[in-house]
């Protein structure tokens, strides 16, 4: 029988009630008394010199309070980058300044030039149209290959070229990899594009800055996945506000998917302007503004070569990637194509020699940074596509080829510097093959062919790394932050608990899941536990939620703090029952003395801590509140096997997903319902990438896809029902819950499954198509078939 409480229960989400009744509190729902509105005038050219900004007429217009330009931000810090990559020549990456408002040059369509603050949004917009801009448009660097050519237009003149870094990993392996590839029995080569995407959380970004002149305190309400990180980056590096005078609140946040990790210029602007004007200043992005200012994702161009011996064992892997950084370095952008990508290139396979080269390129486009999976989807896509192609070239079953090369012994140290703690790749593949009735595929293909359609089956594996850590290691790799998490557990006098976590929920369900863990540990009903997050004023310094880290890192911090609470309550219980502390047991919310019938309830012990009349005051302090910071000793490594079955209409090239199955190993699972929901969502985004989504620029750097009219978001009718399984969990060995993280898996594992399936369908019709770049629109598929 399923559990109805604690770890393993599919508890319904408590946060749902407010979201279902329209009583959530998203940032745009916040209006501060006397607030002003800001509208940003943004560049409509990709590259240009600002010769002049005449704001005189606009400033005189109705309702305008003040118009800010880049000149107002001289002396204010640059928007910082949180990760410094050192390249294969020992050079640190090039790191250009990123002003809050453009200074001297505009570098992408959407780059903010001026900010009009007015009494109403309409007045701000109208005045922005009256600003007289004199911008000299320059040729733009858009295509990455061309941007690296001699004489290409420069994104940042002072850098001399558009190369941010030239990273090699593992550099010491390079010659050995080259040699192995030269001598291999078979080499499969594939060139591919990992298409540029826009994360598109349904809630656009919003910032409300407020300032209290009496106290000197600044407050920023913002749509962030990590309010403490924003407080640190903006306070310390941009505006020079010490953390105790700056509060950052990220209330209900309508989805993030990575793009709400980063510190953005609009946040700094609203905080700065609120102080300058002594009035609250609010900004709400329109969707088209979001398309040209939210950090984009992916955008890699890759050549991958897989070398095999005569027995089809993988012997070496070499990849070369161009990674788009856009016009400025967003918060974690340099880490995505390097440490979040190169370290995963072993995948699920025991390839002994691997070399990864990544050239990061500045272009006159919106900055590119982490988007759901961040580097790991790019690694998985190229690897699982090249393995599939190798199987086709060698005439072997693609699943058999994978199984033959699976890592089967753990812990396993890969040649790309990471150590997988646990996993069972054959188990997830076995489950997958059962889920999809692989034996019945031939009959299904025949049925499709009978009605004039092609049918294809794509199967692949994935591995990801979650909960990136430990801090001292990531520091060596260039992170300018720690990657621990924190929790304060406060027990009230009547026994209820409040957990203040540095993690942040923007759809993941922390408010439901975290209490399940504490309920299990103490033996209480989960309704006794409340979760507080999203406000730097009431939670300890935390790093927030991304990279599927909340439960593995934030949950572990909560477990550690709760363990401290339990240790202290045992001391109190021992005192109350006049027993030795070592004999105290805690079960179902009752303390008992082993081997006796003595017991005292949880609530009585908590009350004693706050009304310490009969209490060991000489040994322990009154009160019951503990904080823990947890810094993991390793990443976690979720893995699995995915399958996609498609029908292709040969007349039109249209691809229809007939079925999709995912067999995942997430380690232990706290709330299966929520885990399945996370996988569904990831699959939706991954299939969206494979079939529909593409962020397109023309050769002049004009953004062609800047609304839902021209960026194809997956709709309900584009996606199937999913089959998902997480029964093969191999618990993580180095965190107290044995959890691995499930937020990104779906988006990582699904794109290659779709492409593998479509190639399989086309091959079944005798078409010599070995690859099609995503998204697999009808036009691209038709062209591939008829090209």
């Amino acid at each position, binding site marked *: 029988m399923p559990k109805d409480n604690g770890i393993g229960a599919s508890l*319904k*989400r408590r*946060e*749902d*009630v*407010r*979201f*279902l*009744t*329209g*009583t*959530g509190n*998203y940032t*745009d*729902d916040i209006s501060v008394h006397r607030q002003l509105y800001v509208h940003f005038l943004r560049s409509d050219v990709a590259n240009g010199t600002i010769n002049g900004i005449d704001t005189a007429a606009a400033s005189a217009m109705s309702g305008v309070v003040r118009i800010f330009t880049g000149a107002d931000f001289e002396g204010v810090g640059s928007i910082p980058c949180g990760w410094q990559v050192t390249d294969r020549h020992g050079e640190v990456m090039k790191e250009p300044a990123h002003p809050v408002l453009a200074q001297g040059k505009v570098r992408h369509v959407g780059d903010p030039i001026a900010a009009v603050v007015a009494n109403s949004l309409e007045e701000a917009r109208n005045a922005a149209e009256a600003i007289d801009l004199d911008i000299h448009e320059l040729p733009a660097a858009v295509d990455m290959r061309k941007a690296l050519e001699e004489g290409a237009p420069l994104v940042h003149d002072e850098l001399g070229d558009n190369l941010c870094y030239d990273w090699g990993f593992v550099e010491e392996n390079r010659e050995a990899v080259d040699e192995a590839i030269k001598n291999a029995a078979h080499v499969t080569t594939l060139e591919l594009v990992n298409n540029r995407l826009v994360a*598109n*959380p*349904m*809630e*656009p970004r919003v910032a409300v800055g407020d300032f209290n002149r009496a106290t000197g305190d600044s407050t920023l309400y913002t749509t962030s996945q990590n309010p403490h990180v924003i407080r640190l980056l903006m306070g310390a590096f941009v505006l020079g506000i010490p953390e105790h005078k700056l509060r950052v609140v990220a209330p*209900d*946040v*309508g*989805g993030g*998917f990575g793009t709400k990790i980063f510190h953005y210029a609009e946040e700094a602007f609203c905080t700065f302007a609120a102080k300058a004007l002594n009035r609250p200043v609010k900004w*709400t992005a*329109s*969707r*088209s503004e979001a398309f040209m200012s939210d950090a984009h994702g992916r955008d890699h161009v890759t050549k991958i070569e897989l070398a095999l011996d005569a027995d089809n064992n993988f012997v070496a892997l070499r990849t070369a990637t161009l990674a788009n950084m856009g016009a400025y370095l967003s918060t974690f952008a340099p880490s995505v194509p390097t440490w979040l990508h190169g370290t995963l290139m072993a995948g699920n396979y025991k390839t002994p020699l691997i070399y990864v080269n990544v050239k990061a390129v500045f272009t006159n486009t919106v900055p590119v940074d982490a988007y759901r999976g961040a580097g790991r989807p790019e690694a998985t896509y190229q690897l699982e596509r090249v393995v599939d192609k190798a199987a086709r070239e060698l005439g072997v079953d693609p699943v058999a080829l994978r199984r033959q090369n699976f890592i089967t012994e753990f812990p396993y140290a890969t040649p790309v510097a990471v150590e997988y703690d646990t996993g069972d790749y054959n188990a997830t593949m076995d489950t997958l093959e059962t889920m999809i009735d692989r034996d019945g595929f031939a009959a299904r293909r025949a049925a499709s062919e009978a009605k004039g359609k092609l049918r294809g089956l794509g199967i692949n594996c994935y591995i990801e790394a979650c909960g990136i850590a430990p801090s001292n290691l990531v520091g060596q790799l260039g992170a300018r932050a720690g990657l621990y998490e924190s929790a304060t557990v406060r027990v009230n006098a009547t026994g209820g608990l409040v957990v203040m976590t540095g993690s942040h929920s*923007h*759809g*993941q*369900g922390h408010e439901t899941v975290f209490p399940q863990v504490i309920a299990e540990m103490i033996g209480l009903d989960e309704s006794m536990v409340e979760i507080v997050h999203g406000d730097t004023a009431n939670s300890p310094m935390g790093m927030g939620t991304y990279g599927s880290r909340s439960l593995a890192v934030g949950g572990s911090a909560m477990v550690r703090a709760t363990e401290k609470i339990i240790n202290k309550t045992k001391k109190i219980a021992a005192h109350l029952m006049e027993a030795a502390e070592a004999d105290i047991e805690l079960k179902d919310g009752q303390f008992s003395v082993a081997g006796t019938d003595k017991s005292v309830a949880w609530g009585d012990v908590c009350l004693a801590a706050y009304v310490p009349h009969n209490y060991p005051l000489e040994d322990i302090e009154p009160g019951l509140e503990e904080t823990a910071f947890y810094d993991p000793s390793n990443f976690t490594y979720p893995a699995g096997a995915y399958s996609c079955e498609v029908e292709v209409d040969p007349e039109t090239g249209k691809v229809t997903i007939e079925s999709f199955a995912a067999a995942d190993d997430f380690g232990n699972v706290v709330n299966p*319902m*929520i885990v*399945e*929901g996370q996988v*569904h*969502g*990831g*699959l*939706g*985004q991954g*299939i969206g990438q494979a079939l529909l989504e593409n962020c397109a620029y023309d050769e002049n750097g004009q953004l062609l896809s800047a*609304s*839902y*009219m021209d960026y194809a*978001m*997956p*709709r*309900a*009718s584009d*996606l199937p*029902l*999913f*089959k*998902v*399984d997480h029964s093969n969990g191999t618990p993580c060995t180095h965190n107290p819950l044995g959890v691995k993280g499930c937020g990104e898996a*779906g988006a990582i594992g699904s794109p290659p499954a779709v492409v593998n399936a479509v190639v399989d369908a086309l091959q079944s019709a005798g078409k010599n198509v070995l690859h099609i770049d995503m998204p697999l629109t009808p036009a691209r598929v038709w062209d591939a078939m008829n090209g």
Partner: protein
Amino acid sequence: MTKVTMTVNGASVSGEAAGNTLLVEFLREELRLTGTHVGCDTSQCGACSVHVDGKLVKSCTMFAAEADGTDVITIEGEAAEDGTLSTVQQAFQDHHGLQCGFCTPGMVMAATALLKENPKPSEAEVRHYLEGNICRCTGYHNIVKSIMAASGQNVEPMAAE
């Protein structure tokens, strides 16, 4: 500015609206009914869906002045007086039909309208009806399941495993 009067969630309300004020702006800014959300600027996402005189309407496609004299139901008007969730709302909670919650008000309003028109929709009919509502979190699986469950149909075969 003109005075606009309408019934919202059963109560008569009036307020000042400029000629170009959208219904969604009137609901959110003037009436402070912030459950109706704005997710795009091209009438594609459906986060602002409400019912006007019993019909499903994207409130970004209608001026407040056009809604003068109409009967408007927003997400805040869906649960019972005592807070009991509507059948559709309850099904969304029971089947995990929401994650971040931002598209959810529009989804609930769309689903409620669908079931009024078509009390026992097929899976394909549900997906087709949701064409104007975008969700980025759920992959739609559990939204479809929630709506099918709210219609009283057996959703056991749609279990994830």
